[in-house]
């Protein structure tokens, strides 16, 4: 039993069931008049409809305008298929890489004290604050033909820019913060007591990680991975700079959508775009599911929280 939770549930209960009108005098101080409440709700719903729901519906409407046959034809077209494959491949490399880096960074920041910790925390946020185009340009400057390592890479016949490695690097850069950002506050709030308990009981480092740390963060980790994956598949700016837009070779799905659109193939563009929109919906569904699970399981063991 956790007092914290019991009280939260209570709070939610009484907000969900507003006081009857004749008891207006006994209304809570935080309650607003009904007209104000409904106005706020209407504004919020109106805004969401106009700016989120209508565009989303438009994607599917445009994609299916010429019927299902045309829709599937656009998806299995050679270049479209190759862009889908490339996107999946990039995500399959970038997401696991960020999973490992993210867990390592979060572990270091949340569980240890060291010099430069604040700097590291700030660095993790850089991809969020830098324009994706800049992120792409950085790699062009480093690995491009005129870049720092350009000549050397060319001598060894390694192609980074306008090829898969460049796309993967740019994607990793842009999506790096998702896992780490999700885990740091979670791991900080959990403290190190359980790890200490495991060590005193004789567990070695890896055992402590696999048996204690990882199970405790699994839902947060999954949440971060899903967001990371959504962004990895949907990234446009950074990838656009390093990809070179070679059809059938270095075009990811978002880039392919743009090319089709620029060529006035609206239906095909929206068909591919609908896949990305579907990915977004699946991501949202998974995200809600995880939030529901953590809401149930994530109850803190001790209401007071760890001391010290």
């Amino acid at each position, binding site marked *: 039993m956790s007092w914290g939770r019991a009280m939260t549930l209570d709070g939610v209960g009484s907000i969900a069931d507003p006081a009857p009108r004749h008891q207006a005098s006994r209304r809570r101080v935080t309650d607003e008049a009904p007209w104000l409440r409904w106005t706020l709700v209407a504004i919020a719903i109106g805004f969401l409809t106009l700016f989120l729901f209508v565009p989303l519906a438009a994607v599917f409407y445009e994609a299916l305008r010429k019927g299902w046959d045309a829709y599937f034809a656009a998806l299995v077209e050679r270049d479209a298929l190759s862009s889908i494959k490339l996107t999946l491949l990039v995500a399959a490399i970038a997401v696991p890489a960020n999973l490992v880096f993210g867990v390592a960074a979060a572990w270091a920041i949340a569980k240890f004290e060291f010099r430069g910790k604040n700097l590291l925390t700030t660095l993790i946020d850089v991809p969020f604050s830098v324009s994706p185009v800049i992120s792409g340009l950085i790699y062009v400057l480093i690995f491009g033909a005129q870049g720092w390592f350009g000549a050397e890479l060319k001598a060894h016949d390694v192609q980074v820019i306008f090829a898969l490695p460049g796309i993967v690097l740019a994607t990793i850069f842009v999506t790096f913060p998702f896992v780490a950002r999700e885990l740091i506050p979670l791991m900080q709030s959990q403290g190190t007591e359980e790890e200490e308990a495991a060590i005193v009981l*004789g567990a070695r480092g890896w055992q402590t990680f696999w048996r204690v740390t990882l199970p405790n963060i699994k839902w947060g980790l999954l949440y971060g991975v899903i967001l990371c994956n959504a962004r990895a598949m949907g990234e446009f700016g950074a990838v656009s700079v390093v990809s070179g837009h070679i059809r059938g070779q270095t075009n990811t799905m978002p880039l392919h959508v743009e090319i089709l659109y620029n060529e006035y193939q609206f239906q095909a563009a929206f068909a591919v775009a609908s896949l990305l929109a579907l990915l977004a919906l699946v991501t949202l569904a998974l995200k809600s599911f995880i939030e529901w699970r953590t809401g149930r399981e994530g109850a803190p063991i001790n209401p007071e929280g760890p001391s010290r």
Partner: protein
Amino acid sequence: MSIEVRNITKRFGNFVALDDVSLDFPAGDLVALLGPSGCGKTTLLRIIAGLESADAGQVLFHGEDASDRHARERKVGFVFQHYALFRHMTVFENIAFGLRVKRRGERPSEAVIREKVHSLLQLVQLDWLADRYPSQLSGGQRQRIALARALAVEPKVLLLDEPFGALDAKVRKELRRWLRRLHDEIHVTSIFVTHDQEEALEVADRVVLMNHGKVEQVGHPEAVYEHPASPFVYGFLGSVNLFHGRAHDGVMKVGNTTLAAPEHADAVDAPAVAYARPHEIEVDRYAPGATGIVVRLARALAVGSSARLELEPVDGGPPLEAEIPVEQLRSLGLREGETLVARPKRMRIFIKPEGAPHEQVAA
């Protein structure tokens, strides 16, 4: 197994948590580390466990230097204040953890683990909770599971960090008696940290009083309570009355009252403080010429067999607290507002070191 710490010093930045602490913990004893928060008691416990490393000094297990041994090799059982149970494991798996992480050669078979866990659950009298998760248990149950988990690896030493700190008063009382009985049963050398003097005095074989990173006094509970070695110990172990005055030639003057201070016969007009516990103060109705401190009875509170009197000295000064049997209160027929005289039957006088500020004591 006996534990010894030698000249342990530990700093956190500028804060000195432990200042050259040396202590002996004889085998089989249950010792309490008692002191106010920030006195270094938890740090000392964590250094013994190997969870923290000392800046200087040694920890000896059974006479052997264990300072460089990693926490996982020290074979200590550690019970955390907030239990630190593995929240994603059942009670059974929590207790089995220490056995499951052993190296393959030493790891007992599944059947042995099962048997061991169940016998430990019986020991802590919670056999029926094996399949629950920690979040489904009460605080007292969690603490007992944490203890069972610590005992599963058959530690040579049991270290408990404020084991009852997060529990409510009633459960706390039950659990500490239970811990005492358990210790008498298994007889493993145990050290527990507490800031609750009642808990320390009731449970421990020996009490170590700590303040500001130093050991103030070590001894049997009765001895430290009856013969506090310093004003700090006096003030920390139960409520106490302070009489500020001056000691001279074996006599202490408090206001216009004199108290005998034979142990300070050589004192020459030295500032002194006399300490007396509430039950060491006797009161009587005021009569002209009576010796003692003239006070007004501000409040009389009869709870159980004794009555607590709040006394305000007539010539000013901090209020006094006296405890007398309820029968005496009745037979004297004392009323609130009456003028009385108070006399310490027994007290301890400490000469204040010249120039040093007076030590603040918790009442």
